[in-house]
């Protein structure tokens, strides 16, 4: 197993508040890596640091050995690190097909020169094939012509995952994939994430609130509290870690 993504003593301060303090971990090939913590623990800030939304105040981020600290969102995406959003983000007035097509287009034509360089790839049969492949993978093959804005909330989130996959990433960052979903949708998205690892060979980092989902699908979990990592390990280790139970889950918490 090789290291894909590595954080070294990452720090983020907002004025006087230290949102992320000395976080280090390494994500291995073929792993679903979960990040949990109570509200305000710094999960989202940590996520945004990796995704390039915020610039770290200290420490470094390495992806496949390359230092990507301070890269912008689009530069991170072009390296093969896709992300999904907590709220739904799709092009609401366009069809599912057009959403998937645009995802590939935006990844390829990242600036005007790139569009002309890759002009011959546009509207190619290979791209059409890829759209069908991804839509089958996310279970959208019968919805290709539906307008994205008319889809149910859960479906829009799944479409967001499909769009991230259209950029042919190696690693996918997922910001609370289960937030706002009902129990059956949660099961479905959990299964989808596992298939992304097993069938597509992707590495996945996810930030999540839903304890059952994270315990079910993650290979390893990092627990943060007040910006500081307090435990890291497999779900079984985390469940029995006294620090985690005391600091985050509460003394009387029972795992369902």
């Amino acid at each position, binding site marked *: 197993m090789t290291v894909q993504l590595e954080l070294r003593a990452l720090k983020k301060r907002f004025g006087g508040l230290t949102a992320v303090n000395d976080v280090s971990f390494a994500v291995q090939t073929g792993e679903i890596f979960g990040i949990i913590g109570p509200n305000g623990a710094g999960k989202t800030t940590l996520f945004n640091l990796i995704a390039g939304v915020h610039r770290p105040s200290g420490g470094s981020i390495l992806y496949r050995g390359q230092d990507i600290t301070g890269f912008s969102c689009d530069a991170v995406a072009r390296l093969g690190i896709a992300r999904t959003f907590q709220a739904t*983000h799709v092009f609401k007035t366009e069809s599912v097909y057009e959403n998937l097509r645009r995802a590939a287009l*935006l990844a390829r034509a990242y600036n005007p020169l790139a569009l002309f360089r890759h002009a011959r790839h546009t509207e190619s049969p290979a791209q059409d094939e890829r759209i069908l492949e991804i839509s089958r993978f996310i279970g959208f093959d019968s919805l290709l012509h539906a307008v994205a804005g008319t889809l149910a909330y859960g479906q829009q989130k799944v479409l967001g995952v499909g769009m991230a996959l259209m950029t042919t990433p190696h690693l996918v960052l997922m910001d609370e994939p289960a937030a706002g979903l009902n129990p059956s949708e949660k099961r479905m998205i959990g299964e989808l994430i596992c298939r992304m690892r097993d069938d597509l060979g992707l590495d996945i980092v996810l930030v999540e609130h839903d304890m059952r989902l994270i315990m079910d699908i993650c290979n390893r979990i990092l627990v943060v509290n007040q910006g500081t990592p307090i435990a890291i390990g497999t779900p079984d280790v985390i469940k029995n870690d006294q620090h985690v139970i005391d600091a985050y889950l509460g003394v009387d918490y029972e795992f369902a």
Partner: protein
Amino acid sequence: MIKHFAIGIVTLAVILSPWVTGGKYELHIATMVAIMGMLALSMNLMLRIGQLSMAHGAFMGLGAYTTALLCMKLNMPPVLAIVIAGLMVGLIAIVLGTIFLRIKGIYFVLLTYAFGEIINLIFQEWVSLFGGNNGLYGVPKLSAFGYRLTDPGTYYLLTVVFVAATYLLIRKIFRSNIGAILDSLEQDEPLSQSLGVNPLSWRIGVFAVSAMLASVAGSLYAFKIGFLSPQAFSFSLSVDLVVMNVVGGALSPIGPLLGALIIVPLPELLRSVKDYQLLCYGVVLLVFLVFFRDGLMGLIKKTQKAAI
């Protein structure tokens, strides 16, 4: 089919009427409509990416003065001068864009406004080169391939060709993948960026193309009028271009053309009520902003829908 035919006939009639009636004055107004239509279209490109540029008057002026000076001082062939001026203005827009376009909204408006004013001051104060407030006299007529374009009717048709080409270019841009990319950035920039696209580079590209179109329109203006003065390229010209888009409707490239067709002849039509000219202008703008946000084109589309 019949509808398209009818629209074609009306368009052709509108284009040809000043040429047929042939009055020098009508031809002058019609030529100005075509040149301003081209400028309004270049402003339309900026509005579509959600940026209000107050530098377009300056871009037009830079195009006009550069073309004129290249022809007058270096005896350069006019066509070459137009191309060089366009490339130079495009380059200026790229440099400005890398700084200005990092900021959206009101600050971009203010920065472009400041740039426009600086350029205008240079036109006014650098008397030895630009002729200052007295203007630059003696711009030669446009000539190409040994043919001098002196007939106002022919020159009018040339400007129509340019405005039509600009219209087709902008329509093509918005129906192509470029349009899809720009629309994606407008609809959801964080999502677009997360997929890998660099928003700044696309905005700079649009700004440069838009500035180049304004420059070419400026060149055509210089050859038409034969005399350049800084007042013609002031801040108020940029405002007029926005007004044309508001009145005509900024959502389709026909909108700014309709806007130019209405706004450019307006001062001539209102000459008899000169004292109320600005008042009429203001009232028209208010009515459109309050009641017809999508301009005349929006109004036409709405009535079409109601008819069905």
